[in-house]
């Protein structure tokens, strides 16, 4: 790990100013991903600005839904009575990720900012456009079993690793950030993470020095939800495929717009818009779920070693919908 200066920020404004002031400075909160990347030499910083002590840990109900402090721990968010009661999908998704120890450390803001676990990204002796723009992609013709099947580019086929973010995509969250000179903005979830295109080094649309302060989730009428995670071992592994489902059903009919999001398939949490569109207003049956899943996976373009993900994706969507609606 390269030497770095460590400072504790007194407040959010000071933290933003400190990171804006230095091109290689970063915030550190839980550190569960950043420290690992620094040990591997994937990320090098000149300065770490510790924001763990800032007062951004509140979880509270608002007029429009719920606000999750950026520095609330994943454990506290998943187990908050309001989250468990009104957003059980989020609870399930958070608890599907990592281990108890890591969830005790990881913050909500940091969870959204964790970086891909693509092995070529992590191995500094390999080419990787995300780590070193212009160096090429080791994965696209390499061992790409865990990589993307949707939305990838010839520059990058990595997937986003977060489970929490998949649920937040399905719940239409908004990310509140604080920028230079006290400015703030609210980023709708679909516009927060990005597809790789020609600039895979950018995972999201935050600017250097912008600080996530909270995540808001609007109220909803969903009476059915489920988070399904398929992985290589029973627990403590990243998703091969995950599916978040949230919808309202009345008398066996899907009322309004259902929400379906997927993890493990793309560079960002993937909203399954084709499947959602197909299911709106339809009966909640296995036949309809299967047709919806096929509609979503029609656009899938697998790589050499992840062809299985197309069929797995279909089955995962169907199974998640069946679990959510109580058919299985």
């Amino acid at each position, binding site marked *: 790990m390269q030497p770095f200066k460590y400072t504790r920020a007194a407040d959010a404004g000071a933290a933003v100013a400190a990171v804006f002031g230095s091109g290689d400075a970063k915030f550190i909160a839980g550190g569960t991903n950043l420290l690992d990347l620094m040990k591997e030499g994937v990320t090098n910083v000149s300065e770490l600005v510790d924001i763990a002590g800032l007062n951004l840990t509140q979880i509270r109900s608002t007029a429009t839904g719920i606000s999750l402090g950026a520095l609330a721990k994943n454990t506290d968010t998943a187990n908050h009575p309001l989250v*468990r009661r009104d957003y059980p999908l989020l609870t399930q998704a958070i608890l599907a990720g990592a281990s108890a120890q890591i969830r005790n450390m990881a913050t909500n803001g940091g969870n959204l900012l964790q970086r891909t676990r693509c092995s070529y990204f992590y191995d500094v002796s390999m080419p990787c456009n995300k780590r070193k723009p212009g160096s090429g992609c080791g994965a696209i013709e390499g061992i790409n079993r865990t990589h993307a099947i949707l939305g990838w580019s010839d520059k990058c086929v990595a997937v986003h690793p977060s489970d929490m973010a998949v649920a937040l995509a399905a719940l239409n969250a908004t990310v509140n950030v604080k920028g230079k000179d006290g400015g703030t903005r609210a980023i709708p979830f679909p516009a927060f993470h990005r597809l790789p295109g020609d600039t895979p080094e950018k995972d999201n649309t935050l600017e250097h020095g912008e600080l996530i302060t909270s995540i808001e989730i609007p109220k909803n009428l969903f009476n059915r939800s489920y988070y399904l995670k398929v992985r290589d071992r*029973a*627990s403590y592994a990243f998703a091969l495929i995950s599916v978040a489902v949230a919808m309202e059903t009345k008398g066996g009919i899907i009322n309004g717009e259902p929400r379906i999001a997927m993890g493990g398939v793309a560079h960002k949490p993937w909203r399954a818009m084709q499947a959602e569109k197909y299911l709106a207003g339809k009966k909640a049956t296995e036949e309809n779920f299967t047709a919806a899943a096929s509609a979503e996976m029609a656009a899938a373009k697998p790589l050499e070693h992840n062809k299985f993900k197309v069929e797995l994706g279909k089955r995962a969507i169907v199974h998640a919908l069946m679990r959510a609606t109580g058919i299985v």
Partner: protein
Amino acid sequence: MGKELDSEPVLNEDEALLPRGRVGEEPVDYQYISPCDDPREDHYIPPLLVSSDANAQMLADEERLLDELGVFGESRRKFLGHSAAVGLGAFALHVIAEQKAFGFTDAEIARNEPAALENAITVTLKLNGAAKSVEVDSRMTLLDAVRERLGLTGSKKGCDHGQCGACTMIVDGRRVLSCLTLAAQCEGKNVTTIEGLAKGDELHPMQAAFIKHDGLQCGFCTPGQICSAIALMQEAKNGDASYVTVDVRQKTGAITLSDEEIRERMSGNLCRCGAYPNIVAAIREVHTGKPTDAVAGMIIEEVEHAAV
């Protein structure tokens, strides 16, 4: 290679103790016991069942073992004194309990201070209840600080990347990975390691249960497993949910964990020896307060012990 040691190997007391002898056998070659050859059924001998003949036999075994491990001087005298008196099982308990919980003294910490640090941070924290102040490089993890600078080597460095759980400590009441925690971020925190669990001679119930159920083989993951399991007991009391909780909407206060729940909630602690069934049994016993059988997961009658 067959290379001979040119100096006495340095062993911590706990490391010297780990290969445990069994009663009534001819002395065997202790240099390497394959986990595959290790008969599990009578691995642990409750001290009260050891006869004086058996004690004598065990003493001979142990002397031979200590020779081969190169344990001399004070550690050896202590070992033999204890084992002749009460037998190996009880001795193991005693020594674990006796381990220093607080690590280096202030003078020792000062003596080990590096000559110059580029980015020095002074951190004051409570380690197993004792206030410690130490100057560290900004890059130093909590794990390295506790092991190298504060002198408590019970917490282990397995992967150093947050994938194995061997470094698990309890910080401000919660289990965390000390290998992914900067020491600099621990200002004012309350840190508990495996050394801080026993009260004097009395083991923490989770430590005793791990010994009783043989929840270990090589022992490297054990400090992390035990710290993790102790924090889990509190999480269950809080009614925290897990990924295998059937309905997370129901929050009901303290919960009783099924074996499936214990396995899911302990998945951040890997055991390469595969002692998982015994680890689950130990945790179940502490969690339910009822003695349990390791393999079948059934509650056994306490009279079974009395009848032996």
